C-alpha cells in the first residue's frame, strides 16, 4: 500500500495494474454512511410502525374476522399508510441518488476525485453499483415487511385487490424496483443538472411522472385483461374498465341512466352499475323494486332483461406475482440503462 515511488522511471507501465476495486468500498461507505444511516432511520421507524400494525391486524382478524377488519379500521389505516409511503422511493432518489454526482460537481471535488489513479468511470461505476445495491436491499426488505403487514386484509373483498394502485408498488419486489429507479433517476439528474437542490426536485418530478404513467397506462396492460359480462367478480379482481352495450353495441352511461329514469328509478349514480359483489348482485338489489308494479327487482336485472350487457375488464388477483415480476423487470432494466447513461456522461463530462 505504501510502496515508495521510483520517480522518473520510463513509461514501461503499459501493463498498468488498475487500482483494486476494494478500495472503493471504503470510499463509498465513508462518504455516504450518513445518508445511508438516515435512510435506515426513516425506513426503520416506518418498519417498526408496520410491524406493530401487522401484529394488531392479525389480532383483530383473529378476534373479529377478516371482513370486519377489511371494511373498518384496517382498510382506512392501510390506505393512509400506503398513501404516505408512496413518496418514499422518490425521496430516496432525491436524497440518496441526486447528490452523489451533483455534489461533486457543485463543490468542485470532482477535480480531485476524477484525477486520482482509480479513474473516473471506474469510480462512478463502483460507487453507483454499491449504493444501488444498498438502497435496493433496504427497500426490498421494507417492501416485504409492508406485504406481510397487510396480507391479512388485501384481497379479501372488492376494492382491496392486491393489484390496486395504492399498494401494488409498495409490496413484493415492486417497492425495491421503484426505489432503484428513483435512485437511478437521481444520479442521472445529478450529472445532467450539476447542482444538488435542482437535481433533487427534478428527481421528484421525473419519478412521479414515471410512477403515474406506469400505474395509469402500463400496469393495466401487462397481460390482456379478462372480460366478463357477469356481476360477480372475484373479490381479488382489479377492475380496469366497465362499459354497457345494447344488443352488442356500446352505449353511454347517460343512455343507461335515461332508460332507468324512464321506469321511475331515481338518481342513478355510476356506482349503481358498478362491480356488484356477492352482497349486491342482481338478486339482492340495493334499491327497491322498479318499474310498474315492481316487476324488476333491481336496476341491473331490468337492464339485463332489456338487452343491455355490462362488460367488465379486470385483472384477476392471481396475477399479482407475474405483474410484480413484469414491473420489477422493466424497472430494473430501465435503472441499469439510466445508470449506464450516467457513467457514460461521467466519462465525457468536461470540466
Amino acid at each position, binding site marked *: *500500500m*505504501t*510502496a*515508495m*515511488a521510483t*520517480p*522518473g*522511471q*520510463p*513509461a514501461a*507501465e*503499459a501493463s*498498468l*495494474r*488498475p*487500482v483494486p476495486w476494494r*478500495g*472503493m468500498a*471504503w*470510499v463509498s461507505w*465513508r*462518504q455516504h454512511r450518513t445518508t445511508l444511516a438516515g435512510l435506515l432511520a426513516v425506513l426503520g421507524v416506518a418498519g417498526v410502525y408496520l410491524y406493530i400494525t401487522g401484529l394488531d391486524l392479525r389480532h383483530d382478524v383473529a378476534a373479529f374476522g377478516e371482513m370486519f377488519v377489511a371494511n373498518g379500521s384496517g382498510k382506512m389505516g392501510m390506505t393512509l399508510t400506503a398513501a404516505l409511503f408512496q413518496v418514499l422511493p422518490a425521496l430516496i432518489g432525491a436524497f440518496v441518488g441526486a447528490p452523489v454526482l451533483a455534489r461533486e460537481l457543485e*463543490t*468542485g*471535488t*470532482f*477535480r*480531485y*476525485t*476524477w*484525477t*486520482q*489513479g*482509480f*479513474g473516473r468511470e471506474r*469510480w462512478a461505476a463502483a460507487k453507483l453499483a454499491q449504493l444501488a445495491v444498498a438502497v435496493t436491499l433496504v427497500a426490498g426488505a421494507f417492501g416485504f415487511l409492508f406485504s406481510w403487514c397487510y396480507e391479512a386484509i388485501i384481497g379479501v373483498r372488492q376494492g382491496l385487490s392486491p393489484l390496486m394502485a395504492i399498494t401494488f408498488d409498495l409490496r413484493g419486489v415492486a417497492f425495491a424496483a421503484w426505489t432503484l429507479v428513483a435512485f437511478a433517476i437521481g444520479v442521472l439528474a445529478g450529472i445532467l443538472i450539476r447542482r444538488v437542490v435542482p437535481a433533487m426536485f427534478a428527481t421528484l418530478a421525473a419519478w412521479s411522472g414515471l410512477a403515474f404513467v406506469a400505474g395509469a397506462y402500463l400496469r393495466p396492460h401487462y397481460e390482456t385483461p379478462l372480460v366478463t359480462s357477469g356481476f360477480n367478480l372475484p373479490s381479488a379482481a382489479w377492475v380496469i374498465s366497465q362499459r354497457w352495450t345494447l344488443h352488442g353495441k356500446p352505449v353511454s352511461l347517460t343512455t343507461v341512466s335515461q332508460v332507468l329514469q324512464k321506469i321511475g328509478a331515481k338518481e342513478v349514480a355510476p356506482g349503481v352499475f358498478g362491480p356488484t359483489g356477492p352482497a349486491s348482485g342482481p338478486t339482492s338489489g340495493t334499491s327497491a323494486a322498479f318499474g310498474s308494479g315492481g316487476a324488476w327487482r333491481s336496476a341491473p336485472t331490468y337492464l339485463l332483461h332489456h338487452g343491455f350487457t355490462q362488460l367488465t375488464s379486470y385483472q384477476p388477483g392471481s396475477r399479482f406475482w407475474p405483474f410484480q415480476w413484469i414491473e420489477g423487470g422493466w424497472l430494473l432494466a430501465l435503472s441499469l440503462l439510466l445508470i449506464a447513461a450516467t457513467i457514460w456522461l461521467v466519462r*465525457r463530462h*468536461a*470540466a
Partner: protein
Amino acid sequence: MNVIETSGLGKRYRQTWALRECTLAIPAGHVTALVGPNGAGKTTLLNLGVGLATPTAGVVTVLGGVPAGSPAALDGIAFVAQDMPLYKPLSVADMLHLTRNLNRRFDQGYALARLGELGIPLKRKAGKLSGGQQAQLALTLALARRPRLLVLDEPLANLDPLARHDFMATVMATVAEHGMSVVLSSHVLAELERVADYLILVSGGRVQVADEVDSLLSTHRILTGPASDARTREELTVVHERRAEAQAHLLVRTRGPADPVPLGWEAHPVSLEELVLAYLREPGAAALPGPARTSNAEPTEVTR
C-alpha cells in the same frame, strides 16, 4: 521526454474557444510556469493535460506520449485544482485514507510526517482547516502519490504571503528530492519567477511564449536608440516598442547574447517580468518552439 505535449490543441465551450491551436512541448525535469491573464486559457490547458477535459481539436499527450486521462496518465500525474477541492466534511485522516484507496501508490509515512511537521491535526475536518492548511493538505495528498508530474492550477491565489512561501518550499523540496516535473499556473508572474525555469505564456486562448527561462532571457534584450532610426528597426525582430521623446526602447528578440548591437543603439538585459509584459501588450507577437522541440533545440518561429 515531454511531460505535456500538445499539437493543434483546441477546446471550445459552446461558442467560445477557451484554447486554440495550441502546440507546445513541456520537457521533463522542469518547473514550468504557465502564465497569462485571467481567462487566457490556462485552466483549460491544465484540465486537458490532466484529463478532466477532452479536446475539441488536436491531441494532448503526457509523460512521454501517453494519452491524457488514460490510466497510466492518471497514475503518474497528481493534480491540485484551483481552490484546493477537498471533501470538507471528511477529517484529514479520512482524506489520506481516501486518496490511498484511490491510487496504486500512496506514501502514507511521508504524508503523516509532512502533516505532523505542518501541525495539521489528523482528526480535524478538512473544511475547518485554514486556507493555508487546506492548500498544504491538498499538496501533501498529491505529493504522497509520488507523481512523475505535479500539476498545480493557481495554487497560490488565495494564500497569504507566508503560506505561499511554505507551499512553494514544499514543492521545491520535493522536486529536489525526487526529481519530479512541475507545471503550475498563475496570473501573477512574480509568484513564480523565483522557482520556474520554463515559461509558457498563454493569452487570449493562444500560446504566445514557450521556452526555458534562461533561453528567453538570453535571446531577448532591450535596445535604446534614436526613434528616428527606422531602418534599424526594420532589420530587428521587435516584440514591443516604447517611445519617449526622441528615444525608442525596443524589446527585441535576438539569436543570442552574441548578436551584434546596431550602431548608435545601447543594449540592456531584460527581466522576465518586462519580457512577459511586452508579449502581453503585443498579442500578435510570439516566441514559440516547433512542435517536437526538446529542451536544446533552436527556436524556429519568431513573428511580429
